[in-house]
């Protein structure tokens, strides 16, 4: 019986096995790369806003405290977004004719809210609470990064559950003294591990509870 396949078929067969394996690995790698890339996670991508509000200018240059605008960050799960009135506290006096601020003036005049694009967005089945983090010594920059250096705000971390759990499993790595929570320039000391462990004990952080699903999901 004559050979049905020529000699080179063996090579093609072997090569295709290798190629298929490579394709699978490559697809996996591509998926992973896309999944963790800023394209998906939005990490480091400045979000366009109806008013190009600069945290850098207001926080770094002018020294306005976070809580001047995000008023409920210490008392509520929601940090609070400033009502138009808060902007106009200053901007009724300063830059009153600036074209950039036209949407703000329009909002006050018409009573229609400014619609900001959300930068840090969690899925709807996650119940994050700002007040407990702030009160237990987790600083703004721990999650939001150096907001004081962001002209247009971007997301600093993925906010994926894996990222949350790093800290929920070892809060001593991130915890800081309560009076440093709003300090944009606080840096971890060399002995963070030890200091952190002390603070965890001092602030009665319930380590056993932090990994329970019901802490965030209900």
């Amino acid at each position, binding site marked *: 019986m004559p050979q049905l396949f020529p000699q080179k078929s063996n090579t093609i067969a072997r090569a295709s096995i290798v190629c298929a394996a490579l394709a699978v690995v490559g697809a996996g790698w591509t998926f992973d790369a896309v999944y963790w890339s800023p*394209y998906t996670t939005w990490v480091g991508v400045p979000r366009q806003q109806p008013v190009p509000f600069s945290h850098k200018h207001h926080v770094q240059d002018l020294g306005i405290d976070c809580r001047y605008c995000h*008023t409920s960050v210490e008392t509520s799960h*929601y940090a609070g*977004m400033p009502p138009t009135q808060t902007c106009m506290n200053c901007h009724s006096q300063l830059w009153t004719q600036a074209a950039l601020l036209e949407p703000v003036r329009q909002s*006050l005049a018409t009573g229609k*809210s*400014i619609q900001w694009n959300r930068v840090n967005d969690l899925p*709807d089945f996650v119940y994050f609470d700002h007040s407990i983090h702030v009160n237990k010594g987790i600083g703004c920059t721990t999650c939001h990064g150096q907001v004081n250096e962001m002209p247009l705000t971007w997301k600093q971390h993925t906010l994926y559950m894996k990222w949350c759990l790093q800290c929920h499993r070892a809060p001593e790595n991130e915890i800081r003294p309560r009076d440093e929570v709003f300090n944009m320039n606080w840096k971890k000391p060399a002995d963070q591990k030890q200091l952190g462990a002390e603070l965890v004990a001092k602030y009665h952080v319930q380590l056993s*509870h932090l990994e329970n699903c019901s802490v965030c999901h209900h």
Partner: protein
Amino acid sequence: MPNQSHKMDEIRARLAATPMQWRGLEEAAGTAEYAERLHREFFPGSSEWADDVSRRHFVKIMGASFALAGLGACTKQPVEKIVPYVKQPPELTPGKPLYYATAMPMDGYGMGVIATSNEGRPTKIEGNPDHPASLGATNVFMQAGILDLYDPDRAQAILYGGEPSDWASFLSALNAAMAAQKSSQGAHLRILTGAVTSPTLFSQIQALLAICPAAKWAQWQPVTRDNIREGAKMAFGQVVEPQYHFDKADIIVALDSDFLFANPGSIRWAREFADRRRIHARGPATMNRLYVAEPSPTMTGAMADHRLPISAGEIAGLAQALAGGNTQDGSAWLRAAAAELKQHAGKSLVIAGESQPAAVHALAHQINAALGNIGTTVTFTASPEPWPLDQLASLRDLVAEMNSGAVEVLVIMGGNPVYDAPADLDFSEAMEKVPLRIHLALAENETSRQCHWLIPAAHYLESWGDVRAFDGTVSLIQPLIEPLYGGHTDLELIEAMVHQPSRLPYDIVRWYWGAQNLYPDFEKSWRKALSDGVLPGTALPAVQPKLVSAPIQTPSAAAGPELILRADPSVWDGSYNNNAWLQELARPFNKLTWDNAALISPRLAEREKLNNGDMVELKLHGKTLRAAVWILPGQAENSVTLHLGYGRGTTGRVGIGTGFNAYALRTSGALWFASGLELTKTGESYSFSATQTHHNIEGRDIVRDGTLAQYNANPQFIDAQAEPRPPRDETLYHPNEFKYTGYKWAMSVDLNTCIGCNACTIACQAENNIPVVGKYQVAHGRDMQWIRVDSYYAGDLDAPQMNHQPVPCMHCENAPCELVCPVGATVTDDEGLNLQIYNRCIGTRYCSNNCPYKVRRFNFLEFNAGMTPVQKMVKNPSVTVRSRGVMEKCTYCTQRINAARIPAEEEDRRIRDGEIVTACQAACPTGAIVFGDLNTTGSHVSKLKSLPLDYWMLGELNTRPRTSYLAKLRNPNPEMGT
């Protein structure tokens, strides 16, 4: 479910041979179908897609879903908007709910509530602890009333002749009509309302009657309190309101009275009644004793120590015998009740139901007077209604005047007389003769269809107003939200008739109370009243009416089948007909959803060869109605009960096509019951959706019960009813995975005080965003409520004892559900909560299969799909809305635990006992549900769990449930036997 035919004799023999607790006739009969259903993983039809799908169609939709599944994974998280306020209200902390005290009017009487507002949306109702009719608890109507606010079928625009119009056009039409009426002193103007207790509305109507002195005010509501008022008038010669004090009564005799559920004071009465039955301490216990005579099982009847199923027509005879003292020839029930009333003179109480004729009420007052109960267990006040009318007479007069052409303008405020007025009056035809008909209504209904003007009414959560409770206490009604559809209140409508430009509703109410000069500093008192929900010192003072010593004639009872008409425990008189939460709520005892039924006794079923779902023709006084029957153990032999509120002609998309219109048989001579009913089997059958045998548990001793005497002789006696609790480490898995050193959450449910009112089920539905699935899905066993109230019967088929058992998740420490989940979507946390993680769940349903308590609910379909933006507003923002393919169940309101935990941890303290109140616990009128931490010394729940009556359901499985029960005790008269 196929209609099975039951052989009652066989059931009786079986029940006599083996004492058992049973949930329905199938179980009592022990049918093969029942056994098969019991052993199946899911209710038949719930896991299968029974709808016809052709192979071609299947391939088509599957192809589409595969493609979508691939694409779905590639979508990025969409950009969401943040929409801050322009000017933020100063009282608001973003993300934190606000609470407002207000009051829900029900049939004219106020129920105090605390309404939760999330960023301006009312989302949840709780009772107001400061309000006398609530004491912090709620009933099903208060819980579900919030759904009516967001009902997409509400009237959304002023209609004139069915065409959209506006308030200004209405005012000009009204002004023209009023100008004509004023010139004739209002001789042709008629107003029709329900019962009115609102002092402000009454003063408005008085102002109207002052300028139109010849105008008349008629009142009608189907659940009328005429008999109560006329009974008091017969006994005392004046209109007085009886106020009952169940906390002071050792012996209670209820004559066809569902005082635990169906009255404006019922929530308070249930609390007072339960307080005398609660066994919350060790040592010898005492309990009150309840005798109930009634034709159809009610919540009150189920709590009775001695219940006498008797036709409604025979109740008058009982009352006459009790009053006359000639009880020797009567039944054992009558003799015992009479003897005990006498023994406990001054501490006993006889109460008649609103459906019994005035004479029975008068007799009850006479008995109470003779026993010296007046002043202790019964007191009297003036009526909370400033103008109490004989409603039926006033409606009859109105119809006569309309027929004679004497009425030119008819203003109907609320209500739905075309649907619910007595059939013999033919209100609909009479109304057609009125040249101008105006209807203020929450939703378009039968009456508004026939009116020239439909004015959308504001929901009570959108209104300013006031209302009195059963004891006269005034509550201010304050709005939480602007009227969604520009609704108007009754105050505004009368105001517009009296003077224009009209004042705003807020000003009307405030001006009225300011003019009363009740308080030295009005502004302060007004603010306090708005904050507390009650105006202090407005309860009506007690009066001492003198008994009129005229002999009271009672009608004699006729033999043969009688028809009983009652308000439905869910849709009431039809006002809640379009409320999906209430429609899907399983009624007590028969567990029917989405329908009413002609409830018949097993003996009548046997005699007429009827089975559940058989259609019959009911004929009474020349009126006929076709309805399907349901066999109800405990029903009086010849009584056929129909609940009102169904078979509506014009209602919303929820209520349309449900049930049978009992009003077709309701005539002015027989509002509540009548003998001479003819019942003919038609041969057709009807398909009901009853949850009676859903979520069945196979096992013994689910409900443990006994008597007070047994308990006092041996407090541990219920332990003998089951196997002992196995030792903790008798398991193959890790018995000590958790030490539970922090909090240890647990719940205790007191079966002794549970009245089976279903308030917990609706409260849970509202709190936890539980979807409604509809009649068809309920029939397939896909109902979703997290806490169900099971009804169990015990003993005689014709006069059984009835027990209720609320069943939420047991939160087992050794949870069978967790071991079988392949993805760890259900796990125990270190505080003992059995968590369900929606975002992990892949829908294998193994957990539900392995749950011995059948408390897990699966989203077989996308039950939350297709909601309008307004419908979504009712959702609790603290609870995830689940989608298709996800298992869910009771979480012990873990969102409420977190809401208490966060402030506690911020203040570096433990959560205090009583700080977390679950939704079911908050709603419970009798305080039968207690939640808390077992590790907090002296916590309420830990005390209850140490009591000898505490037991675990199916404890022999070593699931170590955190939810446990306190066994049910009855207090039968030892002289009557059990």
